């Protein structure tokens, strides 16, 4: 406990310095600004804004990036409530009741409770990270390559189970993702693999390029297919602060949502996505009058929004302690850390305590800022939402180009976002969900490395994965999950959760 306090005070010392406060503020502001734009999710936002953090010291850059991440998440919720266009999977649920509240002239209250719930969830999640950081890091140190490999397999299985739509397609996407990660020089032998002899492919496919193509460019192409009908709320926003009655209805959902979100967020394989869905389903189940849901129930905003934010934050845990990014956003964080010369993993905490704890403390600071930025500036966001898409997307397009060019100064990177954009568009049209592919790609290199090491240690025997108890446990969980997900009755339930 004493450790925790001294660590946190170290962190706050870093996070509250004038420069870092400013960077957190700037990150939150810019993140919200881009995140509010319909059709731009957090992944595209971060990939686009990655270059603007290059000029700062590593701590400042990561604080700013984390700010951009929360900002983008939060901006997505604002859009979901005001326009009924969920910017990303996690705000789908918010749109259900949030937009209905907005139609009833209670947009302000919906935004207010979302902000307050998120802030509460963020505070709790910050404490969870601070408390779990040290013990998990110790756990990571006893993990060998065998355990790492099994953990990542489990993460990928989670991603398959949590993906929307067909399980078979999700598995295929994971495999394609891992396959893509093997493009480039083989680290052990130095031989080129699947590079078509092109020199710029020998380092492999850059993650930011892949993410930008699949989540930035492909999204634009897809949005252009649908004739736009933006249902921006015409009613007054109304008062922002929820009244006593609202608070009474929502404080329990906020707490339950926070708990659910925080736990799911820790899971490898993008568990955070499930948080809002789980929270919404739970609130609906235990509500006295479930019919209110979908018609502007405040619990339907409070719970999922808290779960969303808690999960967004605790998903930093696998990255900071084990060095394994649990989702695409965290993979971009890996990219950002590597650019600044930091290799994510258990050693960050011991070697770079100011960075580690500074970043954790800045999460709380960032959440506070979001509360301060968002509520008074709501008028600005509403105005931003009225910019027609035909003018928005060319701007997004140019920002994507500039962003990706600035990372490596390579025109070929820019061309590749066009290629991956087309690939992503094709995948979407064929009913494949690209998110699992991205996760497979992210974990692919790490998996191959650890698989090789594990097999060398075991002299080529695959049994090592089931002989070592921790590894066997992880694989058993993965197998169990997959079987459960394939059971017909559960599958039906899963489909229901996602269609709701």
């Amino acid at each position: 406990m004493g450790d925790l306090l001294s660590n946190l005070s170290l962190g706050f010392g870093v996070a509250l310095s004038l420069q870092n406060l400013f960077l957190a503020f700037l990150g939150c502001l810019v993140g919200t600004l881009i995140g509010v734009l319909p059709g731009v999710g957090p992944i595209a936002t971060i990939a686009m804004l990655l270059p603007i953090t290059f000029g700062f010291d590593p701590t400042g850059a990561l604080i700013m990036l984390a700010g951009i991440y929360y900002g983008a998440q939060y901006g997505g919720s604002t859009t979901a409530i005001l326009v009924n266009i969920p910017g990303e999977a996690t705000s789908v649920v918010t749109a259900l009741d949030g937009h209905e509240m907005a139609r009833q002239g209670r947009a302000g209250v919906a935004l207010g409770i979302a902000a307050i719930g998120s802030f509460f969830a963020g505070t709790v999640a910050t404490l969870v990270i601070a408390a779990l950081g040290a013990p998990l890091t110790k756990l990571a140190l006893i993990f060998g390559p065998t355990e790492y490999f099994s953990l990542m397999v489990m993460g990928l299985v989670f991603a398959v189970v949590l993906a929307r739509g067909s399980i078979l397609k999700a598995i295929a996407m994971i495999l394609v993702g891992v396959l893509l990660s093997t493009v480039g020089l083989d680290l052990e032998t130095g031989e080129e693999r699947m590079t078509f002899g092109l020199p710029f492919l020998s380092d492999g496919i850059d993650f930011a390029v892949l993410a930008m193509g699949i989540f930035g460019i492909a999204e634009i192409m897809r949005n252009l297919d649908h004739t736009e009908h933006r249902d921006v709320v015409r009613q007054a926003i109304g008062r922002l602060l929820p009244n006593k009655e609202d608070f009474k209805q929502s404080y329990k959902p906020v707490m339950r949502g926070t708990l659910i979100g925080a736990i799911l967020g820790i899971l490898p394989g993008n568990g955070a996505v499930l948080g809002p869905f789980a929270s919404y389903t739970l609130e609906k189940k235990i509500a006295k009058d479930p019919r209110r849901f979908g018609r502007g129930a405040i619990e339907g905003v409070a719970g999922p929004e808290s779960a969303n934010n808690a999960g967004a934050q605790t998903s930093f845990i696998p990255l900071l302690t084990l060095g394994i990014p649990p989702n695409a956003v965290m993979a971009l964080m890996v990219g950002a850390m590597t650019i600044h010369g930091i290799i994510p993993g258990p050693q960050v905490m011991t070697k770079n305590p100011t960075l580690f704890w500074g970043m954790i403390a800045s999460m709380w600071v960032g959440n506070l800022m979001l509360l301060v930025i968002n509520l008074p500036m709501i008028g600005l966001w509403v105005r931003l939402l009225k910019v027609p898409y035909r003018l928005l997307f060319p701007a997004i397009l140019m920002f994507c180009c500039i962003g990706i060019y600035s990372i490596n100064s390579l025109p070929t990177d820019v061309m590749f976002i066009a290629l991956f954009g087309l690939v992503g568009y094709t995948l979407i049209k064929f009913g494949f969900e690209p998110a699992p592919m991205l996760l497979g790609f992210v974990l692919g290199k790490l998996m191959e490395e650890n698989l090789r090491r594990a097999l060398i240690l075991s002299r080529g025997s695959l049994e090592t994965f089931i002989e070592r108890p921790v590894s066997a446990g992880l694989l058993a969980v993965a197998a169990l999950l997959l079987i459960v997900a394939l059971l017909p009755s559960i599958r039906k339930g899963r489909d229901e959760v996602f269609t709701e």
Partner: protein
Amino acid sequence: MPTPHEGSGISGRHGPVRAPQGIAGGILLIALAALALWLTRDLDQGTLNSMGPAMLPRWLAIGVGLSGLALIAFAFTREGEPLERWSLRGPFFIILAILAFAVTIRPFSFGGITIPGLGLLVAGPLAIIVGGYASPEARFRDLLILALSLTPFCMLLFGDLLNLPIPVFPQALAELFPADWSQKAVMRVTAAVLVAGAFVVFFTTRGSRKTTIDVADHSGRI
């Protein structure tokens, strides 16, 4: 590339195919697997004890291919989604815009053709205006104003404030200015000229197109 499947998909609703999207997706996966297998054909697979470079890609490709086969098999037994309608306009202009940006941002040579580095000054507006036509609702005037105002914003943000190594204007432009001017001064003046241009376009063409703008504003769709 997807067009050939499209026809078969639509007629497939009446035939034995019950999930045309599955067929198309399956073919895509199998093609991908085949490509990967062909590309790794010369590489050594090694043994489990010392894995060669081809071990993982090859087995992954086989996995991808099997998933593809399974998708196709299920397409005959289970009811599934029909193929969605494709539009070519969007992807075409978006890709064209990105390529235009890529070849103009800095000197680029492809085959015998060399394009001098024109910098953000040209690449930015090119991306915005060409890309803008991806939407059927594109209007040249609006895109021009957007290009003329966003480009200087990006020049100042990325080039001036953030000091990113992104080429901002062609070298030829810098030579037009007095020799003792710094890069940044040239950049700022250019940005100011662009913004002025945006204002000029905005005010001079406002009267003549007023009706269309009004229609857009009152159409109810935002």
